[in-house]
């Protein structure tokens, strides 16, 4: 139940943000991370961003996911 998924903040409209969640667009609440800015990565749990992810590791995770996706395509 405590699963949370990383997503990149694309736009912000008051307490809601549009995020890119591994290629899918979602609207999530940012009530719990009001300091978040566009371009930052957040961790999304049950429709809410619950934390901001350290930028460097978010980038690393993204690179890894892209590599895995490319490996699948090559197969």
């Amino acid at each position, binding site marked *: *139940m*405590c699963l949370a998924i990383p997503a990149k903040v694309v736009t912000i409209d008051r307490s809601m943000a549009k995020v890119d969640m591994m290629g899918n667009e979602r609207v999530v609440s940012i*009530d*719990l*991370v009001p300091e978040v800015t566009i371009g930052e990565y957040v961790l999304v749990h*049950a429709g*809410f961003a*619950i934390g901001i992810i350290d930028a460097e590791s978010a980038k690393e995770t993204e690179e890894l996911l892209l590599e895995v996706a490319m490996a699948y395509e090559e197969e």
Partner: protein
Amino acid sequence: MKKSEDHLSKAGDYLAEIQTLAQRPFTIMEVCGTHTVAIAKNALRELLPATVHLISGPGCPVCVTDSSDIDRYLYLAAQPKVITATFGDMIRVPGTEKNLQVLRAEGADVRIVYSTQDALELARKNKDKEVVFLGIGFETTVPTVAVSLETAKQEGIENYSVLSMHKVVPPVLRLLAEDDKLVVDAFLDPGHVCAIIGIEPIEFMAKDYGKPNVVTGFEALDILEAIVMLLRQRDEGRSEIEIQYQRVVKVEGNIHAKRFIEQVFEPIDASWRGIGRIPQSGLGIRGEYSAWDAAKKFSLPIFRSKETPGCRCGDVLKGRIYPTQCPLFGKFCTPMKPVGPCMVSSEGSCAAHYRYAQRSGD
């Protein structure tokens, strides 16, 4: 080097160090159900040396919901004009007689929602109905429910309420640390719970009980690295709360989320299925929000706690036995026909063991 190759080589390094450090037996409890699934899915038990035992703890909120609470929300869901909004995990959890799925087939209005925002939207759109959200979950989920109650109060959404069965993790950790029958050397602490509460509320585990603890992320590499960190603590005679999951978890947690929890909820005693009553381990809705507290809004009968005969979920939740040591496991109790909650929830230890066909962990 490609990132994926880099990760594989890191995994190899961690496993080699674990091999070196784990000359003596070392039993680690993973407290969080999401860790249980990650460990099972990545077959980590099979990769580790025989001296390292991973046992699952009481960290699946669905599994620890008491049968009396289940019967209570089933009673409420069967009332006319009530729309029950719930996360999907609860839908097949068996009460004494029925479950939500059965009630829905009988005509009750039960909706699976992805977030409390969806539940509020249901209330806005169905003014002639009462929308009740089933509040189940630990500190990761609680702030999202707190925000919904604050929104309902501010917007004056009168037909929305929450039946709070929420629980918090630190008191059950203390109970485990004090359990003489449980031999656990160290703990993998729940990353997302600590992302909210920080590490101060669990510091007693290291200070008072001398147990190495590592707050851990949910990738296979995170868990392997955390095991290395725990073994190093033992090797160096340390017991501390360390954070492996630093990309997300801050020492102080999420102050906004903590403020929402504090504003809306207060600690109460709560019954944990198979474990019993633990003081101050539950969260009740504060008086200022009582108009949105389903337990106060509806007159609900009190149900008695019952345990299913033969089901050993309680011992599984406390890490006293492996799921396969329960006489019902895999024979009378399967994910298709679950007897106990540890088999119902996909994050339950029994379901994870069954699905990924693990060795029992001898």
